[in-house]
């Protein structure tokens, strides 16, 4: 067995520097033309012949033969090779191209494509973070800076969710609104209801839930409403029952403002665990939350226990509660957690309501990528498999294009550049999608 280097963190597939290959993502059972453009001279020569091997990664047993399908193509135009193929099963396909020279075969390119079934094909892979902080609560940088840093790292969306504060996220959002970027800054907050140690995210709600209990009267009303909530919950102590009902109250109010309620990091260990294991199990089982923060800004041993508990409950209930991965970053410059944990959401559009719908329907995987460690993806096997492909073949190109835009956002915020400067480096997401998904023009 050997190590496949392309899967190591931060390692862009070498092929992506040498070739431009599109589309990368195709629909199953429909014939597509794949274009492979050599970015260097002398690789694809006009009138030369090439052999193409297409190996499905998972639908056949490896019997020592390299491939079960060959194509022969001729290069009609310097630097460009095109071939037509019908990919039949949803999975990754490895394409190997060889130049035929005096009946010898010389490998010149090896890359991957992914074929998808209809439902997933019509969803865009969005990289996002549902949980982050700015200096408006206990984070390090201004909301606008945080936003620019996320974009620099190739995020399609992120929510600023300061403790007990909703307006910082609105400030970040409205500041960049005039630029018309394809980067979605989602309103949000971390909700801390009175005497409740469970951390809950309001992602994308159109109003604040924290503000309901920030006045003296609001606080009193909230507490009395929580105390009046009667529930079948009878397993734990009275103190826990209050916390349980308080969570219910918060989730209900997040739903009322059309937000996504996320149960955060129960096994975070500032001293002992954040949320007692018995209560955590009850809270996950209850289904009151829209999503569970499966991996978050904490150590692998904390995340590893959350994952084990989550899988136990999945097995017991035969049902998979929706998950997200989020960083809970409290700083974006030279500090732990930022960009270590994130989500890939498979959504029809990069819009808040579509992202929420996708998470609720299980179209999301959680990503764990500590520096100097290998990447891990958590979720259903189908999406995990696709997620790895995207991390290696889609996001390196995508993130590269976001980098400049993120940097210019920061310069714009600092008054170092003008709106027209940002426009010059804007990342046109639709164009990108249309190029790398087949049938782009019909989308």
């Amino acid at each position, binding site marked *: *067995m050997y*190590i*496949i280097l392309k*899967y190591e963190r931060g390692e862009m597939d070498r092929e992506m520097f040498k070739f431009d290959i599109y589309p990368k993502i195709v629909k199953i059972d429909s014939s597509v033309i794949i274009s492979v453009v050599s970015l260097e001279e002398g690789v694809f020569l006009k009138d030369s012949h090439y052999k193409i091997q297409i*190996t*499905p*990664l*998972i*639908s*056949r*047993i*490896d*019997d*020592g033969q*390299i491939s079960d399908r060959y194509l022969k193509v001729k290069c009609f135009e310097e630097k460009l090779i095109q071939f037509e193929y019908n990919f039949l099963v949803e999975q990754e396909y*490895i394409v190997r191209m060889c130049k035929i020279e005096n009946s010898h075969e010389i490998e010149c390119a090896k890359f991957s494509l992914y074929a998808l079934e209809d439902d997933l094909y019509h969803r865009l892979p969005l990289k996002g973070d549902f949980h982050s902080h700015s200096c408006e609560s206990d984070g390090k940088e201004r909301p606008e800076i945080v936003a620019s840093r996320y974009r620099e790292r190739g995020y399609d969306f992120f929510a600023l969710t300061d403790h007990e504060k909703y307006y910082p996220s609105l400030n970040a959002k409205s500041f960049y609104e005039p630029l018309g970027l394809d980067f979605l800054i989602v309103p949000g907050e971390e909700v801390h209801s009175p005497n409740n*140690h469970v951390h809950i995210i309001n992602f994308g709600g159109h109003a604040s839930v924290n503000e309901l209990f920030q006045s003296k009267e609001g606080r009193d009303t909230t507490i009395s409403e929580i105390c009046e909530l009667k529930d079948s919950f009878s397993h734990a102590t009275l103190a826990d029952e209050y916390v349980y009902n308080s969570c219910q109250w918060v989730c209900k109010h997040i739903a009322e403002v059309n937000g996504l309620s996320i149960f955060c990091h129960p*096994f*975070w*260990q*500032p*001293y*002992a*665990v*954040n*949320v*007692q*294991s*018995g209560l955590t199990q009850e809270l996950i089982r209850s289904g009151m939350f829209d999503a569970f923060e499966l991996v978050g800004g904490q*150590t*692998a*041993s904390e995340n*590893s*226990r959350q994952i*084990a*508990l989550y*899988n*136990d409950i*999945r*097995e017991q209930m*035969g049902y*998979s509660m929706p998950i997200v991965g989020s960083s809970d970053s409290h700083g974006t410059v030279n500090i732990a957690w930022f960009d270590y944990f994130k989500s890939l959401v498979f959504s029809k559009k990069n819009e808040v309501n579509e992202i929420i719908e996708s998470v609720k329907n299980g179209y999301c995987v959680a990503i764990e990528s*500590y520096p*100097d*460690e*290998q*990447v*891990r*993806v*958590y*979720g*259903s*096997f*189908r999406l*995990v*498999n696709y997620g*790895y492909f995207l991390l290696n073949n889609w996001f390196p190109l995508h993130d590269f294009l976001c980098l400049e835009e993120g940097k210019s956002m920061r310069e714009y915020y600092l008054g170092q550049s003008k709106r027209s400067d940002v426009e010059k480096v804007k990342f046109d997401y639709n164009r990108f999608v249309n190029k790398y998904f087949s049938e782009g023009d019909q989308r």
Partner: protein
Amino acid sequence: MNKALLSFDLYPKVVPIKEAVVVVIEVLDEKYAFKDMEYFVKVVAVSERINEEFNGDTTVEAKVISSTKLSFKFSFPKEEEYFIRVYTRDMLMRGNRGLFQMSLYALKEDLYKRIPLKGDFHSHSTGSDGRESPEIVASRYREKGFDFFALTDHGAYEPSEKAYNAFRELNLDFNIVKGEEVHSYDNNVHIVNFGGKKSVHQQFRTKEGTDSFLKEVREIESSLKNLSEEVDTFIYASCQWIATEIRKVEGLAIFCHPFWEPNSRNVPVEQSISMLNSGMFDAFEILGGQPVHTNNKQVALYYDAKIRGKNEIPIVGNSDSHGTIDIHWFDYTKTIVFASKNRTEDIIEAVKGNYSVAVETPLNEQIRAYGSYRLVNYAHFLMNHWFPIHDALCVEEGRLMKEVYLSREGARERIEMCKVDLNALIEKYFR
């Protein structure tokens, strides 16, 4: 190693729940010596307390036995990890964070009666395509703190017997398990025979053996029903035959690394799911000697299969090591088995009864454990607080095993002097 473990000792570390136990805390450097004053211990139930600074935790008075030893009596109510924090009266009054903190784990009876064993069910030597001789491989496993390992060369049972015999007379508490990796005709599914009393692969070495195998497989194949079209029935039947034969020789049949990618996947997804849910294998190699992304996908598949089929599927984590010196996979992935004794039949019983977790420790990465929450939680405790102590003792024994194998002068005497006494260790830390 956890810093506190080098400066302090605490025993027992693993206790039964709801029983008053006397816990001893010992300092390992005179700079920490206890003085003639009052000491207290705060007991923090890690997964029961919320994250406020230990308000309302149980505080008990500790007794100074000597300048290096302190003891306290406590009955731990629930199965989980407890922090033990040591305070002077002064510190307690001032709300100070205390002198130091150690950990202890309380267990329900079933798990308490079992001992944690670190093991590998799948490895190779020069008996097939591995790098070192069987005896060297064995000594290297011991050096890394393994309680047991099986040598499972491709199609060869003899190398494991060779490793076993080389150290048998030493009566070590290191269990060298016999085994092999079984490869039948036209079937690329890799299956480990762990602990079988005899070889299963042996049969394929003669033409008659192969012919009768094929005949029986064809019979099984014709009786198969309700399989998805994507399942290769010949392979399915071959695997069923092999697993059955492994059980006949009292071995554990392990389904290995379906997602290993030599070119494309070793075993297609539908084939894997259907064989996993059939119950034909005794255990699934959820982590194997392969890159993290491959193991990660296998874990995702395992849970998908389990939820779909609603079956219990026991798991093991193996390295599939093909070398133990400066080479990938060795010691990256392993299993902690909770068995009543370090004997092969007890290990098999434990795995079948779901008393195992797979542990992932790739070079320079954090520890991750896979399995039920209950065992994962306990495994993290053991990896931090038990195995560092245990493994340190195994290093010397492993090193001397190699010297014994090389017939170095005095090696036998020296290994007698520093043998790891697992029972004594368990007695100190578990009883």
